[in-house]
């Protein structure tokens, strides 16, 4: 099976599963948060993408030259909770900011950088090679609209957090 054959099963198993697995692992190690996803059991990804309050997009370029996007999409409440928890674990304090301020955005950025790094390692240890770009941070719906240009397929995976809501990992395929 080649990754260039953009089938749902292929993307699901080769890209989404590593991202979801590493996201849940990083939630535990970096934020002391327990995350779960139906994708790890049997559910198929959703075929929708709707911008929430904060998103991070990473270009994922396949060996056929096509650039797709992996997007982490969060509402403000969930983003703030994750940001606060990442900083609390790192600093050994109890961070309780109530806004998505620069400190929380930076904490989320570091969290997502870690997820991308680990997922990239997993994916590239298979025979698939995907080149990932640097994270791009999106703060409103208008800024996110370019992501949908030329998109042929959308695969979205909800990740549920214990007492902290839900966020979404989407793979936008061109």
């Amino acid at each position, binding site marked *: 099976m080649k990754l260039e054959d953009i089938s749902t099963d292929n993307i699901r198993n080769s890209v989404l599963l590593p991202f979801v697995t590493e996201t849940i692992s990083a939630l535990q190690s970096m934020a002391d948060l327990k995350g779960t996803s139906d994708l790890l059991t049997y559910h198929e990804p959703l075929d929708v993408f709707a911008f929430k309050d904060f998103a991070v997009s990473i270009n994922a370029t396949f060996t056929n030259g096509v650039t797709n996007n992996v997007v982490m999409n969060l509402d403000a409440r969930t983003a703030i909770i994750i940001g606060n928890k990442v900083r609390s674990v*790192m*600093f050994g*304090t109890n961070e309780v900011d109530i806004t998505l301020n620069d400190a929380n955005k930076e904490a989320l950025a570091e969290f997502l950088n870690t997820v991308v*790094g*680990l997922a990239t390692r997993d994916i590239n240890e298979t025979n698939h090679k995907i080149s990932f770009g640097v994270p791009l941070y999106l703060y409103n719906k208008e800024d996110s609209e370019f992501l949908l240009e030329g998109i042929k397929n959308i695969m979205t995976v909800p990740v549920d957090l214990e007492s902290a809501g839900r966020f979404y990992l989407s793979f936008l395929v061109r």
Partner: protein
Amino acid sequence: MLDKEKTILIVDDTMMMREGLRRVLALMGYENTVQAEHGKQALNIIEGGKHDIGAVFLDIVMPVMDGKEALRKIRETNKELPVVMVTSKADKDSIVECSKLGMSSYVLKPINAAEGPGILSDIFTRL
């Protein structure tokens, strides 16, 4: 063991990572730290001579000048200064490369308040 009177240079493009490491070092009694956002700034601090730098914590992926290039330049003039590379679990290839360039040790990100002091103590005993 690293002399606590000396200054430790923390180099990372992320403020949160610099602050996290500064707090861990303070918990260990290393109060003298100075920070840089990229390799070029770090070299300026080392060469400036204003601080008595005892060790450097150097992130690998940074803008302007990355950690590998900064390490290479440090080693051109200073073979003795302890340089600890800071990297993610995913970047095994970079660790091998930095080892060839003369790094003293490495530590995996993220360094948190609970585990950081123990991890860094182990490293400091070997420097």
